């Protein structure tokens, strides 16, 4: 079988698996977040009692936002303390981080970014990995899921001012969605060869007279939720290229499936929750089109480069090869995951530019857990606004009017990421503090720095890893980008939910622009691509495009 046939068949199996699962999983998630008649699970009641929250009370958007921020800031403080104190806690194994690295890491894992300025083998003790990072790998996507559901309630409800109860959404998303799926995935990964032990790194003598360090760790349990929760922070420095995280072509396919499955199922959840499944199909069509385009572009670039003398294999594992590496790269950058099974900096100029573009789309192809859906819905609001202006109709989404307040919140939420990326990349280009950390010079160097800030502001976490990011200035500015890139849009999205929920849903009439048709989905894709293109074309022209043409 040729590489092309093998690559196409791999993609076909992945798409078939996603097609089979997204309907039942999406419907299940819709039930999870509306389940009132069957009540709470026993373990959930226990959590509510211990946390002293009333699961029956509903929150206005302001309280919901305060709860999200309170929970997340507490998470940052606790994780920072755990990392800073790892040297005096049990099982430290000599792992250590500087304080600026520790702060960067704490913000990184709480914001679902998982940017890593440290190497997993040296920077984190097993205690930090399990009590700190694995826990945030669950709760940070659960926060994203909660915010997305709150926005959907804003569209679906037409009375009152409440958008849900954050604590209930957080606990249910964790207990009923993420935990069971992660547990099954962890066991399958274990059977595939991913390790799960408490051994310290051991030095073994090799047959040819040398020696080698073999790593240990509770990797399978973390690997499963790392992908499923679109987190991406590797247990080891090489992330999913490491044989103990991703031992073979089967685990590789499973990991790609895990990072796509919840984001691609959420459009179904949306359709069910708003009572019109066609709306979900339109969002799914939008996400799948962008993902398909990015997979095609990155694969084309890498397969073309593989025709050269080096076969495109620098930075890639032989057990995967070029096609599955490109598929992983487009999927991890399109889902705000940031795990890597090959080194993106070693990609061809257009392949590297492609994965950068995939992040700059704003993480909606299909985006992170929750953040992909609310990002796509922001673009849907923008699309009805723009098309409303074009055809002279009142902009409405699902019978909710997009007025001045709604479009202002939407535009602000969409502008946060581009502003952070362009401002900090610009500063980086003139500040010796940043440019001295670059591995490459010229256009590739610009791509390196832009990739870092795009990765942080989009909460992706993948890297052009030649960039030495472990300095105080870079650590702190990236932490700032991660924090603002996550929580400013979240607050604005919740404000939008609060504004929409108070509106009565207007009946459909002849003047209504339907938002479930292929025409709308095409417009929707066009808006995403054009907004990204107009914002980033100058910078991309100086980086990857200049490199590809030179």
């Amino acid at each position: 079988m040729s590489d092309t046939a093998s690559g196409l068949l791999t993609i076909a199996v992945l798409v078939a698996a996603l097609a089979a699962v997204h309907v039942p999983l999406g419907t299940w998630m819709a039930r999870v977040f509306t389940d009132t008649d069957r009540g709470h699970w026993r373990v959930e009641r226990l959590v509510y009692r211990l946390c002293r929250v009333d699961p029956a009370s509903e929150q206005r958007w302001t309280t919901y936002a305060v709860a999200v921020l309170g929970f997340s800031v507490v998470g940052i403080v606790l994780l920072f303390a755990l990392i800073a104190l790892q040297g005096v806690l049990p099982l430290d194994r000599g792992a250590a981080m500087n304080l600026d690295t520790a702060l960067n890491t704490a913000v990184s894992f709480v914001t679902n970014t998982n940017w890593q300025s440290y190497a997993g083998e040296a920077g984190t003790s097993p205690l930090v990995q399990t009590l700190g990072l694995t826990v945030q790998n669950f709760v940070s996507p659960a926060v994203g899921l909660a915010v997305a559901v709150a926005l959907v309630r804003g569209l679906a409800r037409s009375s009152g001012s409440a958008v849900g109860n954050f604590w209930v959404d957080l606990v249910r998303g964790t207990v009923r969605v993420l935990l069971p799926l992660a547990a099954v995935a962890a066991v399958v990964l274990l059977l595939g060869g991913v390790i799960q032990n408490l051994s310290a790194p051991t030095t073994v003598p090799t047959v040819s007279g040398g020696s080698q360090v073999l790593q240990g760790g509770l990797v399978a349990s973390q690997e499963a939720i790392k992908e499923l929760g679109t987190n991406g922070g590797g247990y080891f420095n090489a992330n999913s290229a490491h044989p103990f995280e991703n031992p073979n072509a089967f685990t590789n396919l499973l990991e790609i499936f895990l990072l796509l499955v919840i984001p691609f199922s959420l459009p179904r959840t949306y359709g069910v929750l708003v009572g019109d499944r066609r709306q979900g199909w339109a969002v799914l069509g939008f996400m799948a089109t962008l993902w398909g385009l990015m997979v095609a572009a990155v694969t084309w670039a890498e397969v073309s480069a593989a025709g050269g003398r080096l076969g495109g294999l620098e930075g890639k594992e032989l057990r995967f090869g070029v096609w599955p590496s490109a598929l992983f790269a487009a999927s991890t950058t399109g889902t705000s995951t940031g795990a890597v099974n090959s080194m993106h900096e070693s990609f061809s100029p257009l392949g590297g530019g492609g994965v950068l573009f995939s992040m700059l789309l704003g993480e909606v192809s299909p985006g992170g857990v929750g953040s992909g859906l609310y990002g796509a819905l922001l673009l849907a609001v923008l699309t009805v606004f723009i098309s409303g202006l074009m055809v002279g109709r009142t902009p409405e989404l699902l019978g909710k009017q997009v007025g001045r307040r709604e479009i202002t919140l939407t535009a602000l939420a969409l502008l946060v990421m581009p502003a952070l990326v362009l401002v900090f990349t610009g500063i980086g280009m003139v500040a010796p503090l940043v440019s001295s950390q670059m591995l490459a010079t010229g256009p590739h160097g610009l791509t390196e720095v832009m990739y870092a800030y795009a990765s942080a502001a989009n909460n992706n976490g993948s890297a052009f890893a030649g960039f030495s990011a472990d300095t105080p200035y870079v650590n702190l500015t990236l932490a700032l980008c991660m924090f603002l890139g996550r929580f400013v849009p979240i607050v604005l999205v919740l404000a939008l939910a609060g504004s929409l929920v108070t509106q009565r849903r207007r009946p459909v009439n002849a003047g209504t622009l339907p938002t479930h048709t292929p025409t709308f989905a095409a417009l929707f894709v066009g808006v995403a691509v054009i907004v990204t293109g107009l914002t980033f074309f100058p910078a991309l022209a100086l980086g990857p495009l200049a490199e590809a043409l030179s």
Partner: protein
Amino acid sequence: MNNVVKQSLAGLRAMLVLTVLLGVLYPAAVWGVGQVVARDQAAGSLVSYGGKVVGSSLVGQQWKGGEWFHSRPSASDYAGATSGGTNLGPGPALDATVAERAAAAGLDIASAPADALTASGSGLDPHISPAYAAAQVERVAAARGLDVGQVRSLVVAHTQGRTAGFLGQPRVDVLELNLALARLAASSAG
């Protein structure tokens, strides 16, 4: 203000409760299942030779000397302490590195298989391509005084096809091949 304190305290309690569930019970449960259904894999698919653990079948090693099959180049020489790649993109720096690798391994850049000239992303790639293994057969056979046909059939026996017929690439696990080679040499010497 009151609300901020109230929600943050709830957040603190939630973090502590969820840490017990997700950071202790969940990894422990997966560990327990691993001990029952996948003990070897959980421990790292360790490989023994002469009664001693000499590596993992999943993790590549550095092989020096003409009598062994060599692995791909590695950014970390397969030390295992910290994994990672070179992060070099196409360009003069990578070309220079490739030229150094070829010179060190005595390979001709124009004809060598791509995996013989490139480092993997992990620096721990356990595999080489069947082409690179084939290119090393004569050297290994000569260094060990073995029959070329015998070594070649050993390579063929250790060549794995694509997983399930279509996933990944055909490949040879270098550690397993070299251990088979060592056993063969030991048996023919004895």
